[in-house]
């Protein structure tokens, strides 16, 4: 199947992604992989979950198939379907079957966004059976030892409709992610945005303060990702206050009062 060979190669990560370990997460993930267990990454948005997966895939030398889940995601979208090509029906693997066949790492990002009936397909993959039934083909794919399933979700969501079912969550080894400690985060922001350490530290300072506002009406504090965005703008020559306003404050909230407070935070640091 030359077509598919090519496709899985697209998912291979060739250059080492930048990832700064904060604790034992890499050791744990390696162990989880060695024991063929599925992995659940919990944490707020933009704190490095996806980057961690990229790094892990690179280190394990496995292709990484990432699926961003949404509420229209059907089983067919994951597993695959027949398509008509030139009057003939051709089977197209979905990302999940693709990863299973190739022994890749399949990473379902924001799994809670997927419909619950879709989430169920991963159940047999996520326990010791490690198999994926492809009903249309009448095939039962058994995952090779190299295959790994990883999912992520953000427990900060407050919608009662978006929660992970116990039957799903109790299949995973869960790694909790949070924003990195200040000195790590400074290093990350400096490195990713190409900034000097001082500016990066100031960005982190702003973020730390916004995270302190969670009880005062802010749903979530500024993520590392936002800081990197702001950092890139600053690096590109935008004034720091403006960069923070557009890349940190405005994305965080629409409430005028909260925005004002956020801008006060920014203007006290920059």
């Amino acid at each position, binding site marked *: 199947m030359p077509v598919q060979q090519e496709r899985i190669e697209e998912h291979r990560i060739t250059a080492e992604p930048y990832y700064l370990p904060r604790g034992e997460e890499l050791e744990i993930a390696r162990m989880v992989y060695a024991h063929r267990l599925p992995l659940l990454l919990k944490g707020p948005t933009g704190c490095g979950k996806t980057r961690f997966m990229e790094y892990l895939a690179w280190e394990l030398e496995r292709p990484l198939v990432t699926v961003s889940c949404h509420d229209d995601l059907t089983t067919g979208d994951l597993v695959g379907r027949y398509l008509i090509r030139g009057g003939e029906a051709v*089977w197209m693997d979905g990302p999940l079957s693709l990863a299973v066949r190739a022994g890749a790492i399949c990473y379902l990002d924001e799994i809670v966004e997927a419909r619950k009936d879709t989430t169920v397909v991963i159940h047999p993959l996520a326990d010791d059976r490690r198999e994926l039934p492809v009903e249309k083909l009448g095939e039962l794919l058994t995952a090779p030892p190299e295959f790994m399933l990883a999912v992520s979700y953000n427990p900060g969501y407050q919608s009662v409709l978006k929660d992970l079912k116990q039957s799903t969550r109790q299949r995973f080894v869960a790694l909790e992610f949070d924003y990195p400690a200040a000195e790590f985060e400074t290093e990350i922001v400096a490195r990713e945005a190409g900034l000097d350490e001082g500016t990066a530290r100031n960005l982190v300072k702003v973020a730390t303060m916004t995270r302190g506002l969670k009880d005062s009406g802010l749903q979530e504090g500024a993520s590392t990702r936002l800081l990197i965005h702001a950092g890139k703008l600053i690096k590109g020559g935008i004034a720091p206050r403006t960069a923070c306003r557009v890349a940190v404050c405005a994305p965080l909230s629409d409430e005028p009062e909260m925005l004002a407070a956020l801008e006060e935070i920014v203007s*006290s640091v920059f």
Partner: protein
Amino acid sequence: MPTTLNRDEKVTWKSATTAGQALLEELAYWGKDDYLERLAAYPEPVREEVLRLAAAIWPVSYALGYNFLDQVDKGLSCLAPEQLAEWVKATLDVYEREGLQAATRYLAEVEDNFLCRLRGEHGLSLTAATSRLLPYLRGLAGGELALAPAPVSWTDGETIFLPPEISLFKQSVANFTVYKLLATFQWGLLKLGTLTGDLAMFPGLAKELINRYGRQPAGEEPFPADFCSLFPAPRQAADLLMLLESQRVLRYLQQQLPGLMRDSLPVCRRLQSRRPAPASLRGPSRVLEAWSRWVLTGEGEAGEGLGPEEKKLYRQGLLLLAAAGEPGEDAAAPVQGGGAGQQEGGVGQSLELTAGLYQLLAELSGDYERIEPLLGILRPAAVQAVRLRRREERRQRFVEALGAFLPPEAATSATTDEEAGPVTGGAPPPPDSEGLAMLIGRSGEGDEEREPPAAEGAPEYLVIGGREFKLPEEIQALAREIQNDLGRVPPRYLSAAVGQAGGSAIRGPGPAAGSDGEESLVGPLVYDEWDYRRQGFRKDWCKLLPKELAPVQSTFVSSTLARYRGSLHQLKRQFEMMRLQQRHLRRQRDGDEIDFDAVVESLADAQAGVSPTEKLFIRLDRDERNIAAVFLVDMSSSTEGWVSLSLKEALALMCEALEVLGDRYAIYGFSGMRRQRSEFYHVKHLDEPYSDLVRGRLAAINPREYTRMGPPIRHVTKLLTAVDARVRLLITLSDGKPEDYDDYKGDYAIEDTRHALIEARAAGVHPFAITIDRQAQDYIPHLYGAVSYCFIDDVRKLPLRLPGIYRTLTT
């Protein structure tokens, strides 16, 4: 006199008033033709008014009069002629207060000065600044700090007091920066440990000062007042210390919050310009004032206005001031680093420098008169009071919790009392003393090597009479807090707790103890209550009484809807969108549209020899929102006033929105007194239509008695589990802590409520708590779980926030 007017001049008109005419002649006499020309250009009534006002200024100051005529064009460009008089009056006020220069400037900046005042923009009140300042401050401090008004800014460690109004600048933006600087400065004092130092940590310096001045520290005074009392002039020492600490804090802020300090430069300059000139002061005050000015802006190294001798002292002092906070302050320390109080460059250094500056000033004769506070003042006594109050609260909680946790036999096996143990000496009891209560970090194997109690590490076990008790998490946390405060858990805390051992009934105030015995209650609606200290239920403990709220004839609902007319429209649209947002269900057996993807797939399947599916349609499904929501409303007396009103308004809007959406919902209120009478008021049942009766009951919601939250939560959980719905939602609306008249308060009430919510979750109900409080309390995340609560600090926002919250919850 008209006759004296030079007829050769271009002025061919006269003023209607004698004063005006005199002025015209004066101008003509001095050859001020351009003024006359300009005046001539005005329409008659305006000209008369200008002349009248100019004539009024003339006797006060010629210069100002000419200035007025210079600026009157500009004034007329933004003022109506009848406002001129007001403008001139304000200008003369400024002249009298601040002199010609200020008045001239005032005239020139008519737009900024006078118009702003007319528009009410002259100052910024703390109330107006709070909505912006408080979240900023909380973000900065990473925790709870409150704001309150006071004439001078200071802090007691919990609240930062700031002036009720700031009118240093004409623009409110600039005044806000003043607030921001003052508040941040107070935070800096807290952060850098100015108020939490301890004289005992600097014995060398204290001894030296005692030797030098022969005064003993006033033992009762809190830090740093005890330090200042070592000097012959304690007030002067206190002001010097504050000066040094100001310098240290400003330096720290410069480092940590450079943006703020850059913005604050004009503020500091303005503050400086408001201070009395050093020349107007005498003796030590004069030099101290000069130093203060330097600390504020870093300007004036030369020491203007000082005598030659003073200048020398002044410069020597600057060297000391410049050293304040210099080394040791780790630039890499993140904002939340904390605990900078004791290290190099900390408050200890400021103490030494205070002594140095004090000696410098000793060379000057004259008494010290207090100078104006720089950016705020220290109130060590108030800080101490807060600290003591917190300490006492912790002690009570610890003793109560530990006493309830220990089994009764602990009391008998322990011989601990004040006399038996060597507790009076303050030394920890030796580990081998049988029968003494002590806390240890870890249950170790090598018992001989046990650390003395609370030396370091968190205490986890309590040893009494050779028996070890593993302490629950809450008590451990309390013990840690006490340790952080006092360095150890004092033995008398332990003995007091052991004395109360086995007191499983909480000794609450009030007459509850007698009538509120241990007997179980009977009835259909009797609920258990969770006792966290015994980690078990009190069986059949609370009786719930369902009650009807008598509907009242009131225009409450309709007037609420009228008041929120604008927002309501938007609200309804949002909720309508949620209904319409109903996804097209793909791959249905029947439906309104053909699912093209499914058709293609089935064709492909057919080609491939797989039996094709028949689910080829898309259907718009509206029944998918199968949600049953119960709103549980706090009707305790503490909601009296605004809270209750806003709660009702919020519910009225919520009902409108939900009627549009079509979700099933119920509203119940709760209040009551003691466990025998937990009242549960019906406003609307789940499947009851939103009728006038419901509106009447909604209007009848009013504050009643206490807040025992456990029973109503358990009851609603029971109601909801009986309902067939995909999602069951329990939304509680309350203010502050749960509390009842009897022993239902503090940790006990919080733990029971928490447990009731956990039970609800276990039963498949999604609880969500909305808490209205002036500030978020520490216990809230613990009580409601990290993500399923929302905190509202301004109750007036609730009516519009509630539907928003519901929307976030259910989409």
